[in-house]
């Protein structure tokens, strides 16, 4: 039972990650490989503020989201003007730079040793200790993230995003400041990813840089694409599938590292197959320019 709760909590965390990435990739058509970096930014901010400054849970999340929004603003403002594929390379760059900071700024982050002892979340006197309580918290987060992205996507703002996805020049000719839309979406996406990071940090109570690598970004991208980009619950499906798979393998007795590798083989192969057969994924609406 505990194990099932653990899997569900992870699904919720990845649900936040995938739906926020989908805002960029599925609704605006811009792929970013830096998502894990913002995930890590939120995790580290929460961890550091909680462990060293005693900042309460909600405060840490807000600070994390704020920092992620700021960093994503600084990062995207100059680079989002770049042609699509070059922007992807730029996000690779930011991902590696941020990972380098997590891994090498030892004075701040303790580098590869990570940060242990992250306290349990306390919200207005409610201490979240059990897995069941954490699942409630995680579900609230996931629902919130989906509400926010859903609102954005269904609004005129979302209409402009879909226009940018297909023909940015046309959108500009209609008077839309496409740069504003792109940067704003990037910031929202980064802030939500950071909130997932905070949740993760307080759940596992220990974080280290290996959870926030480029491969993690690629995993989240795969979840979005396999589930289906551009539809609100598509990424959730992808998250559910790819989170449960290694857990099932682990349950059956395979050691962690083998399970992780098998999952990677699985989603790598599935990504290729989906690109060949159905780029929209299982239930998605957007096929990346098919």
């Amino acid at each position, binding site marked *: 039972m505990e194990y099932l709760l653990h899997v569900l909590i992870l699904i919720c965390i990845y649900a936040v990650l995938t739906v926020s990435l989908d805002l960029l990739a599925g609704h605006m058509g811009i792929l970013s490989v830096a998502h894990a970096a913002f995930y890590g930014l939120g995790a580290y901010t929460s961890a550091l503020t909680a462990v060293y400054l005693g900042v309460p849970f909600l405060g840490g999340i807000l600070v994390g989201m704020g920092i992620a929004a700021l960093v994503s603003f600084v990062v995207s403002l100059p680079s989002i003007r770049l042609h*699509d594929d070059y922007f992807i390379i730029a996000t690779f760059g*930011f991902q590696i730079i941020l990972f380098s900071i997590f891994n090498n700024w030892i004075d701040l982050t303790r580098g590869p040793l990570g940060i242990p002892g992250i306290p349990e979340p306390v919200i207005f006197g409610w201490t979240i200790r059990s897995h069941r309580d954490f699942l409630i918290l995680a579900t609230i987060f996931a629902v919130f993230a989906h509400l926010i992205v859903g609102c954005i996507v269904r609004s005129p703002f979302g209409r402009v995003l879909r226009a940018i996805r297909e023909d940015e020049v046309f959108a500009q000719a209609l008077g839309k400041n496409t740069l504003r839309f792109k940067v704003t979406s990037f910031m929202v996406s980064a802030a939500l990813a950071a909130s997932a990071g905070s949740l993760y940090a307080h759940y596992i109570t220990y974080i280290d840089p290996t959870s926030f690598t480029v491969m993690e970004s690629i995993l989240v991208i795969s979840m979005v694409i396999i589930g289906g980009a551009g539809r609100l619950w598509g990424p959730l499906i992808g998250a559910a599938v790819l989170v449960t798979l290694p857990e099932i393998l682990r349950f059956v007795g395979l050691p962690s590292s083998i399970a992780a590798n098998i999952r990677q083989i699985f*989603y*790598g192969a599935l*990504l290729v197959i989906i690109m060949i057969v159905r780029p929209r994924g299982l239930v998605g609406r957007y096929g990346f*320019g*098919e």
Partner: protein
Amino acid sequence: MQILANALVSAAGYLLVGVGFSLIYTSTRFFHFAHGIVLTAGAYVTFILKVWSGFPLSISIFGGIIASTLLGIGMEWNIYRPLRRRNASPTILLLASLGIYAALQALISLTFGSGTKTFRSGVVPTGLLITGIRVTGPQIAIIVISGACCLVVWLLLRYIRVGKMIRAVACDPDLAEVFGLNRDYIIRVVFLIGSALAGIAGVLLTYDADMTPMMGFRVLLMGMVAVIIGGIGEIPGIALGALLLGLAQHLTAWWFSSRWQDAIVFVILILFLLVRPQGFLGKPLRKTAI
């Protein structure tokens, strides 16, 4: 100076990978990330042949390079070509190549473990001391072979018929088809050359510094940055770019710490993308045509 020598060694590796990557990009117009795993595969196949099967070193190396070449061509034939037939966008091709990379890298990790391996036998060479600079045999080999290969490729592109055909397709694929050039054939040739170069790089680098499943990715990213800052399609530019990166990395290691080596490369990349996206010698990128 020692730093210059070390920089040359690193640059040589990036150059080999970068030239292959650039050739493939100019002919197919997408970023073939799986190029990284082609490199890694060459190293590991050499390992299988020598350490597991007991073949002599030269045969093993030859086998490794052949394996890389076949793997690269296999990817083109079985995955990229069918995708191109369906008019897949560059983003779809990029995602497919990420999928290929992820799946194969995990496969290698699964089979060999994530630790370092080597196919050298005997003691790690301490190297010769030439005019105060310490450099090992393998390192000299890397520089010389890399330089020679790139010179050969450059000559090929300029003077040999196939090379000119490659340049024609790179310049204007539709026009080239009008003139009767078979684009698929040229692309296969390009994958052959590029993957062979990657295989050579994989073997050489392992000879110097051992292999890990992730080695290809790192070298690929460096090679990719060298290509972008040097100018896509311009071999002298790529050489310049690779040298700049090698110098930047080793100077950073010397002045600050080797921890920031990778980050500095991407800081340079981002600066170039913002200020001079065409690189040293490249042609200016075309923005969306109106």
